[in-house]
């Protein structure tokens, strides 16, 4: 069977890159004494997949990974063992056992919620955000593997709300289309014609889709 696990990458660890985080999680799993599964081959490693890599500089509140294990066990038992082996800034929040044939979270990923804590929000910014969203097309230039490419951001924005100094963004995150929060902020402040303030961006939730509605990835 395999476990769908939710964990947090606390702000202190935001400077840790994806590969380093992977290694830290592998070592935690090794410490846990859980019945893990290993890859075949020359340098066997623990089977483990993160639903979506988190970029350097960004904390994650509810990140999702999939851990295949040998035999059967409850989510609570798994959670307890893994928690004991994790450092304080990388807590594990929940674990749900599913069948091996259950689709991988990575394949079900659709979007993510981000929160940007702006150092200072421009005045009356809620209205600007409304006006920005009201556009039918939002042209931008996106960095891809093959170079800079023009694109339309509008269909990749599921939601955008401003509360106090916090901008909440729901943005597409899947193989077909991904809008990076950083790109959105640049585009938004260009539209607002104000310099972009410093912001700490946190990914707070990964989302999948069920019956046409977005819902937390780990519940799928």
């Amino acid at each position, binding site marked *: 069977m395999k476990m769908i696990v939710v964990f947090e990458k606390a702000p*202190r*660890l935001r400077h*840790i890159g994806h590969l*380093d985080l992977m290694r*830290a999680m592998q*070592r935690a799993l*090794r410490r846990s004494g859980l019945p893990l599964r290993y890859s075949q081959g020359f340098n066997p490693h623990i089977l483990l997949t993160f639903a979506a890599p988190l970029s350097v500089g960004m904390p994650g509140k509810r990140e999702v990974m999939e851990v295949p294990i040998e035999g059967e066990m409850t989510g609570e038992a798994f959670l307890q063992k893994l928690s004991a082996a*994790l*450092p304080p800034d990388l807590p594990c929040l929940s674990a749900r056992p599913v069948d091996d044939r259950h689709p991988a979270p990575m394949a079900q990923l659709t979007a993510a919620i981000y929160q940007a804590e702006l150092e200072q929000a421009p005045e009356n910014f809620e209205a600007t955000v409304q006006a920005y969203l009201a556009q039918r097309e939002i042209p931008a230039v996106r960095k891809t593997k093959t170079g800079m490419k023009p694109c339309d951001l509008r269909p990749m924005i599921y939601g955008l709300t401003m509360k106090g100094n916090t901008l909440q963004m729901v943005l597409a995150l899947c193989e077909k289309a991904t809008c990076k929060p950083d790109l959105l902020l640049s585009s938004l402040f260009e539209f607002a014609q104000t310099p972009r303030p410093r912001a700490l961006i946190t990914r707070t939730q990964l989302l999948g889709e069920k019956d046409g509605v977005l819902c937390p990835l780990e519940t799928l």
Partner: protein
Amino acid sequence: MNELENARLEGLLETVQKPARYIGGEMNAVKKDWNGVRCTFGFCFADTYEIGMSHLGMKILYYLINQRPDALCERVFMPDADMADKMREAEVPLFSLESRKALNHFDIVGFTLQYEMSYTNILEMLSLGRIPIFGRDRAEGDPIVVAGGPCAFNPEPLAPFIDAFMIGDGEDVMHELIDVIRDGREKGLSRLDILRGLARLEGVYVPALYDVAYNEDGTLRSFAPNDPAAPAVVKKRVVKDLSAAVYPENIPVPYTEIVHDRMVLEIMRGCTRGCRFCQAGMLYRPVRERSMDRLLELADKLQQSTGYEEMSLSSLSSGDFTCLPQLIQALMDRYKDKRVSVSLPSMRIDNIVKQSLEETQQVKKSGLTLAPEAGTQRLRDVINKGVTEEDLVRSVTDAFECGWSSVKLYFMMGLPTETDEDLQGIGHLAKRVVDAYYAIPKEKRSKNGVKVTASASVFVPKPFTPFQWAAQDTIDAVREKQGKLRQYLKLKNVNFNWHESELSMLEACISRGDRRIGEVIYRAWKRGCRLDSWMEHFKYEEWLGAFADCGLDPAFYAHRERPYDELLPWQFIDAGVSQEYLKRENEKAKRVETTKDCRRGCNGCGLHTWNVCDWVKNPPLKDTDKMAAPLFD
């Protein structure tokens, strides 16, 4: 650090290279309540996180201090150049990783001294940590700055900056030192009285309590205590029973990649081979082994607490460990299912290992490193490196048969009595290694093709070795030899690496320096020198300027042969190995005579009078016993 400084630091982390080095929070890092302890220790490593976190001594002492309920120990590393500059600009003090406390908030600030070319980093760290650089300028409330490690055996170059040095094994003396400082502070003793208390501990040297005078020619005239608390001779500390000594059962597991990212088992301390250039071999005598039971117990605990996928064995010459094959077998049996690989720092390919190699992939085929050190048998006899050409060829042949294909060969140039023939010998040995590969039938050797890398470092004479009186080659002489070696090593499948001769010259000045070298280090740091062992930061001209500022000549320290009757700056330290023994060995070197490994019988190195060396009465090997295969680390 206050809140403002903390916020500024968070901002800096967004802009510097590799910020993950400065965040701490690793698994097994120890964060204690500052109000719950009576003494705080800031453990400093005078190099960057990646280097410092790979260092075993730091892990041992970090664990040892944090085991005390009355004390805490936090780690402090040298920030990289970009970070150091930005911290200064933003007025962020050097801080500990665990609690982000500024360095000057600790009761004790301790440095481990691993190599001389990190000394400017010590000054940079004190300065960033808001601690007066010179011991004499420190106020009552400032931390007591202490240091230990191999380079503390000649403490004089750092005497102006360090309040107290610990000489020898740190495990026991560390507790005593903390007790004295803790009690002294609680009783409100003056700084000077606390230092006097430290000077009374065996193995502790307090430089302020000694006076130095020089002759007109610059040599040392006298060196003597100026305080009744200070002993005339400071005796190194020795941990007699390694199995009973504290060893970490868990170590911080870094998030970012460091130089040696694995768990380390120190299987023994000391070495009896008696190579005449090797300082560690003399300083860490006598040889003490950890018991198998203790090692396996530690291995299990470390594996469970770290989750590391690799384990390495550490010592000066692991090949000499009595039960090495049994140990490796036991480790491999234990870790087969846990996917832990065991890497051996020194290769002694016994049959048992060879067999396991074929069965599993558990022993890592990291590059094979061999250190013949010198190119001819004559010169190897001079330095007492008990390795023959045939040993070397047999070792690499074994390794090639086991699938290795790349070999690193370490040599030194500028060894006493070296001639052109010895340099040619280096080329000859490299060629023999390549030939050994081609001598193996195609189907039995690796398909990668053989790769030999020959590295030649510049010989640096070190205190407490038989060559402590020797002159180092001048920079010009070294350059000429490097040119010749380049010719001799123009061979197919062979690469040649050499070291910067300027760095080695400075290392020679500092390692055998006196107190005046401290002033040179200070001037060099003032002129912007730091991170000297990183080529991109090394400023040779500034170092020469620093010598000139102080009216001192590097040649006096590096290139001068010293007579036996000269008073040496480190002579007041008793390292166990006696000056008479070192002289005897130096004379034997001149006569090209070797000295046997003392496992075959005591050579009377001086430690035989200390009652710490078990082998004086019971040498483990008889003359007729075959020695272990050659020793390569």
